[in-house]
């Protein structure tokens, strides 16, 4: 069975989704989803071990060899991403039943879990596959379920946010489809490995250049890279808390993965970064993303929107690391992908707990919450510190690597800007802390209890992970470095 791990990774949640329809009873479905997700988590650990021990795993679907059939190709990068996605999904699911009991009508619970599993499947499928068109198919699975999940939010604005996301997402997917088509037309193949060997022959043609542009723009739409980020804040704000926690921690990471995969593995480093001014372009976009989104975050009164904007800013950091295009830079990006998943997972889950207790996440509602929900608020504070990049949290590790990468290249001004950007994070996190801890409780407001255990456990698992991986960086750095090196090894 071990040889079938790559496909089981995707197939287990996929087949579990229709099974949910047969189970129907919500608590049962929740338990089932949780078991399936943990199973996927275990599989991803095994996969990562295998990859670290013996290198890339190739799995041919249907028994057809690569350019003719579809293959799954798992290297360190994929395995790392698979691990992040399944881990976050499992932890978030722990809190799901409690959280959605207040946010989603009961008869929709079964459908919620089905969609959740489908969305998980889609992301895993995108990451695991080695076939360009298969990426598109699974991208659509994850996006369609994402639209429906976001529209489940209570507020009517959830519908509008979902529709905007749908339009943007579909345009993005269609752009990717056009790009893949052009690529296919010039090479005659859809397999990524095959593409990477055949593209250099035609790298000088205008068609390949355009295909690259379309794929990258399409991915950036999905990634919500500044200035294509407009759909993200609303979508994250009005979606059910669990959905926000899950997507904020995983969805953009998958897009980052695609960006790295296409520009490094498929098109090759020399094409992506030497023939095109991509380095400068992404550097500028990343930096302006950091600043614009951070400043926008400062002015938000809805905490979910605030952290949604902060997500866009964090994407900026990842993009800056990516644009350095050295092993250290890429390591920083991958580390930040991992770390950001941990912090945003913790933060949005904690917000979910607040939502559960007081039914709102407006800034004003946080008055005095520091004493009433001490554990939840402490989690938010630690998550916020991590966002800023305070030492002993994971945020520090990835920023440290990012600065190292920049200094290695001698890009001092950019490094200074990055530090400045982090200061902006201090401002928005401080606003929250100030209100929660230093403002008295609203007069006449009922006192609220601490969040239930089903929330606290997953939140604190993530918070502890935030601290643990901030101190003991061996595991995450080792894997990220291996992934980055393999990318540079494949395409020197």
């Amino acid at each position, binding site marked *: 069975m071990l040889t*079938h791990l790559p*496909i089981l990774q995707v*197939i287990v949640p*996929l*087949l579990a*989704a*229709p099974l949910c*329809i*047969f189970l129907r009873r919500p608590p049962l479905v929740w338990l089932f989803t949780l078991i399936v997700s943990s199973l996927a988590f275990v599989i991803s650990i095994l996969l990562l071990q295998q990859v670290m021990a013996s290198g890339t795993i190739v*799995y*041919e*679907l*249907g*028994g*057809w060899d690569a*350019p*003719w*059939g*579809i293959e799954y190709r798992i290297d360190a990068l994929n395995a790392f991403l698979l691990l992040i996605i399944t881990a976050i999904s499992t932890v978030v699911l722990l809190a799901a039943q409690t959280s959605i009991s207040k946010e989603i009508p009961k*008869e*929709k619970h079964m*459908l*919620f879990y*089905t*969609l959740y599993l*489908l969305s998980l*499947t889609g992301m895993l*499928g995108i990451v695991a596959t080695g076939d360009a*068109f*298969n990426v598109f*198919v*699974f991208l*659509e*699975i994850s996006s*369609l*379920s994402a*639209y*429906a999940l976001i*529209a*489940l939010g209570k507020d009517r604005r959830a519908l509008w946010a979902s529709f905007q996301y749908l339009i943007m997402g579909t345009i993005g997917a269609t752009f990717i489809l*056009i790009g893949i088509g*052009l690529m*296919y*037309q*010039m*090479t*005659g*193949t*859809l397999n990524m490995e095959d593409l990477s060997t*055949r593209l250099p022959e*035609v790298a000088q*043609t*205008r*068609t*390949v*250049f*355009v*295909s690259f*542009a*379309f794929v990258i723009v399409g991915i950036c739409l999905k990634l919500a890279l500044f200035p294509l980020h407009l759909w993200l804040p609303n979508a994250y704000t009005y979606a059910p808390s669990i959905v926000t926690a899950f997507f904020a921690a995983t969805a953009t990471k998958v897009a980052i993965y695609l960006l790295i995969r296409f520009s490094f593995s498929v098109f090759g480093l020399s094409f992506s970064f030497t023939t095109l001014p991509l380095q400068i372009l992404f550097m500028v976009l990343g930096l302006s993303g950091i600043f614009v989104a951070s400043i926008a975050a400062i002015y938000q009164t809805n905490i979910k929107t605030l952290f949604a904007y902060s997500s866009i800013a964090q994407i900026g950091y990842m993009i800056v690391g990516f644009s350095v295009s050295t092993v250290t830079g890429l390591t920083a990006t991958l580390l930040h992908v991992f770390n950001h998943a941990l912090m945003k997972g913790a933060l949005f889950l904690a917000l979910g707990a607040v939502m559960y207790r007081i039914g709102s996440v407006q800034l004003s509602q946080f008055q005095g919450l520091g004493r009433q929900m001490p554990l939840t608020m402490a989690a938010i504070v630690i998550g916020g510190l991590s966002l800023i990049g305070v030492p002993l949290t994971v945020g520090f590790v990835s920023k440290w690597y990012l600065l190292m990468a920049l200094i290695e290249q001698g890009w001092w001004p950019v490094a200074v800007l990055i530090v400045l950007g982090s200061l902006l994070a201090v401002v928005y996190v401080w606003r929250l802390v100030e209100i929660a801890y230093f403002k008295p409780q609203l007069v006449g407001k009922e006192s609220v209890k601490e969040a239930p255990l089903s929330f606290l456990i997953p939140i604190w698992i993530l918070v502890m992970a935030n601290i643990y991986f901030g101190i003991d960086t061996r595991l995450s750095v080792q894997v990220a470095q291996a992934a980055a090196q393999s990318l540079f090894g494949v395409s020197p």
Partner: protein
Amino acid sequence: MKDLVAVVMLAGIYGLLSACFFVAMDAVDVAFTEASVGAGISTLLMLVAITMTGRSEQAARHKPALAFVVVVITGGLLIYGTLDMPYFGAVDAPIQVHVAPRYINDSMQEVGVPNIVTSVLASYRGFDTFGEAVVIFTAGIGVLTLLPVLRSRKGDDAVESLNDSMHEQHLIVRIVTKILIPLILLFALYVQFHGDFGPGGGFQAGVIFAAAIILYAMLFGLEVARRVINQTFIQFAAAFGVLLYGSVGLVSLLNGGNFLDYSVLSADPIAGQHLGILLIELGVGCTVTSVMVIIFFHFAGRKEDKQRMKEEEVG
């Protein structure tokens, strides 16, 4: 153009024309699908949606300048990209010489199905098709969550009386439809099982099958159709199709092959391929039919339920 019905009909005509174009380009399977989807189902769904959202567009300012610039840049980029393309219909284009020749030359020995599109779809790239079935399943679940049934049940008598009055109204159409529906179902089955030899397959058959049921629902009333086709049952059917597809893959996994490797399903690889393709096409057909019916029922049902609730409020 402010009348949305006209807009939707024109979009449907565009779908039909592109289907004709696909025939001219030798893509018969695609043409079949586009005709049933682009001109059929999607137009129908849009029309149903319009009955709920209002028929005419309100005059509104929009910002054509910016959009125009974006479009011109994108279009210009694409035109620029076409300049180095192999010419239209070129025999020595990369796509004609790299992967495709194996499909054309060897698929008969390896899969044993004359329709190459079917053999690529179901066997070589069977996993894409699995993804496709899951996408359509996702859409079904999505519509279920977005448009749940707002059942405020009146008694069955009301349905009956409504039924009687409708019966008189649509006598001719109903009788013709009664003759047609069995034929449509028969044709759907033909498309389903003839997909190996000619254009057709699970997806097209599913859409046609669903079209028959939708036709029935439109003429004999949604309530009647809902009673014939139980809601829970149809959801089960949608899930079952995906499961059937997946379990074919799992069985081949247990038989020692890779996922979706049909050759190990039977002692003779070709027979195994045939069996596998048959089963997965059935799975796709099952899912597509039920999802299309679910989508239609929930759109049209939403409208009827709303109307009924309004009447009850007034009455």
